[in-house]
């Protein structure tokens, strides 16, 4: 049985302009030891679906799912109190902006030890020792001194390392990293990704990496799930996805990578992700898709079998078509 299994997750926000569907029927399955990347443009519902899993969305969000289970526990049935015993301990999360994700009023040590105190019955001394151990594990030099540092005394990379130490404090079975490197320098990005990968291998935890950077995906992930406008449009192992994307959106994303460009001008995807008020009737990608026809524009696409990348498309691309698309 999968460690995390989410089926048909939808999240709706009630806004002044009516309900807005940020996540629309998304499935996520992760096994122990998996590294799953969730890729998509801004507004594709990547973060929101994971926040829904963590229970971090505001009360204005309406979350529905056919299944949402973690290690055999149905998360939908847990009370708020029971869920708080799972998140932070078995499932933990790190965020995009490390500099603002740490509380400026408390030391790094306090914030790491707080997690330990919340979930593990450790005494003061054990918490201190564990905090130092964690700081060493995430590669923070001079941990004894850094424990007493306030967030404003730490660099972005250091802050993200503290966040990772905090997330790993209780040896989680699943770590969700929400664009962990977006706000960091390129050199630091690589370090943090290496660190996450190394820690994942060492602890055997599952890792969900939310990103919009295909380069990060190629380097880190084992499996990739592409989201568009709140829907999962394709899912494949990373190598297969890069070789034979089945959904036109994935193909277009890959074609837009600078390292894959064959012409002087970098190909782009025309248009923008549909918002609350311009949601197309049929396939959500149809207004921007070069293969779209009337069927695409008027009827929602079926979900293709795993051989075709579970693509949500009327006319999934096969190898030949991909070649033609290039």
């Amino acid at each position, binding site marked *: 049985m999968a460690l995390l299994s989410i089926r048909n997750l939808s999240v709706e926000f009630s806004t002044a302009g009516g309900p807005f569907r940020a996540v629309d029927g998304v499935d996520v399955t992760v096994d122990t030891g998996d590294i799953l990347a969730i890729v998509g443009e801004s507004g594709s519902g990547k973060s929101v679906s994971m926040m829904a899993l963590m229970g971090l969305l505001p009360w204005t969000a309406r979350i529905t799912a056919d299944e949402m289970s973690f290690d055999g526990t149905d998360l939908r049935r847990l009370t708020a109190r029971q869920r*708080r*015993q799972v998140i932070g301990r078995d499932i933990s999360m790190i*965020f995009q902006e490390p500099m603002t*994700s740490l*509380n*400026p009023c408390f030391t790094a040590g306090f914030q790491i030890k*707080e997690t330990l105190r919340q979930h593990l019955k450790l005494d003061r001394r054990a918490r201190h020792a564990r905090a130092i151990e964690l700081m060493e594990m995430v590669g923070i030099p001079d941990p004894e001194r850094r424990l007493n540092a306030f967030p*404003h005394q730490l660099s972005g990379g250091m802050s993200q390392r503290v*966040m990772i130490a905090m997330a790993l404090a209780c040896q989680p079975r699943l770590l969700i990293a929400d664009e962990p490197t977006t706000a960091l320098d390129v050199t630091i990005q690589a370090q943090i990704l290496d660190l996450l990968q190394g820690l994942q291998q060492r602890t055997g935890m599952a890792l969900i990496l939310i990103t919009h950077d295909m380069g990060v995906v190629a380097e880190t992930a084992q499996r990739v799930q592409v989201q568009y406008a709140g829907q999962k449009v394709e899912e494949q192992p990373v190598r297969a996805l890069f070789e034979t994307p089945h959904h036109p959106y994935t193909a277009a994303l890959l074609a837009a990578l600078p390292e894959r460009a064959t012409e002087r001008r970098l190909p782009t995807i025309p248009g923008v992700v549909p918002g609350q008020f311009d949601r197309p009737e049929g396939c959500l990608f149809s207004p921007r898709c070069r293969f779209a026809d009337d069927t695409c524009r008027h009827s929602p696409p079926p979900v293709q079998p795993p051989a075709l990348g579970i693509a949500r498309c009327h006319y999934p691309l096969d190898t030949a078509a991909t070649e033609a698309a290039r």
Partner: protein
Amino acid sequence: MLKFFLARLLTFVPTFIGVTLISFAFIRVLPGDPIIVMAGERGLSEARYQELREQFGFDQPLIVQFWDYLTGILHGNLGMSYVTKKPVWDEFFALFPATVELSLCAIVIAICLGIPAGVIAAVNRGKFFDRALMSTALVGYSMPIFWWALLLIIVFSGNLGWTPVSGRIDLLYYFPDTTGFMLIDSLLSGQKGAFASAVDHLILPSIVLATIPLAVIARQTRSAMLEVLGEDYIRTARAKGLAPIRVSGLHALRNALIPVVTVIGLSVGVLLAGAILTETIFSWPGIGKWMVDSIYRRDYPVVQGGLLLIAGMVMIVNLIVDLLYGVINPKIRKR
């Protein structure tokens, strides 16, 4: 820290000069003559009038009078009251403890109720509790304080008979002023029931005086909390699986505290300057009432000295608030 402290102390100097100048000018700009006021309805002869003018130094040019006043202050001499013939310094410190006692009780009530109320309102933004609390706070803030005081007296002292109407302690008890604080003195006296009586007398005036600061603190806490609750680190705290009360009461409140401490500091300053209406209604022998009486009597030294001492107290409170910023927020400490 010490450097910061000394630098702040240095800024007291121009403030002090400003306050002496303003208080000196302010009381003299008011029409009326202290000698005439002192003479009362009987009046006095022209010769006697000139004699007194000379005695008080009013025949000198204003600049000379100001200079005499300044040199007096620098020697620690605030002058004598024209009316009571007692040093201003002694009078102030005989009355000041009463004001401090009342203000402290009021501000403690305001803080203990205002901050939790603001936090709860912010967490339940837009829900019933939030709306109810914020409209109550608005009513509290805009209510005429004398009317509110009278209302409370009528209900709790008059109809229900739970609290005394005025004064600091029951006439049954007598003991010497050791500290000037009735709560402490009554305890020290060891007389049975004295402390309870002092507390009874404090309740209503404290509530009345706490009303406006309470409303201001609650609203300020709410708005500061609303801002902080949207921050990334609050999401982090929640992602750790912390209980909501710890997330809002510790992680959010600590960050929201700076503006709240600022308004608390300002309120304390205002309260220390004497709650004139409250002190008058409850016959509370504090400095607010004393200052107003002195202005009516054109008692120049009392008004000048009193204003100066009150300004000094307010400056000290502000200094404490500034030092508190650093304690609350480590980022400010560094500067």
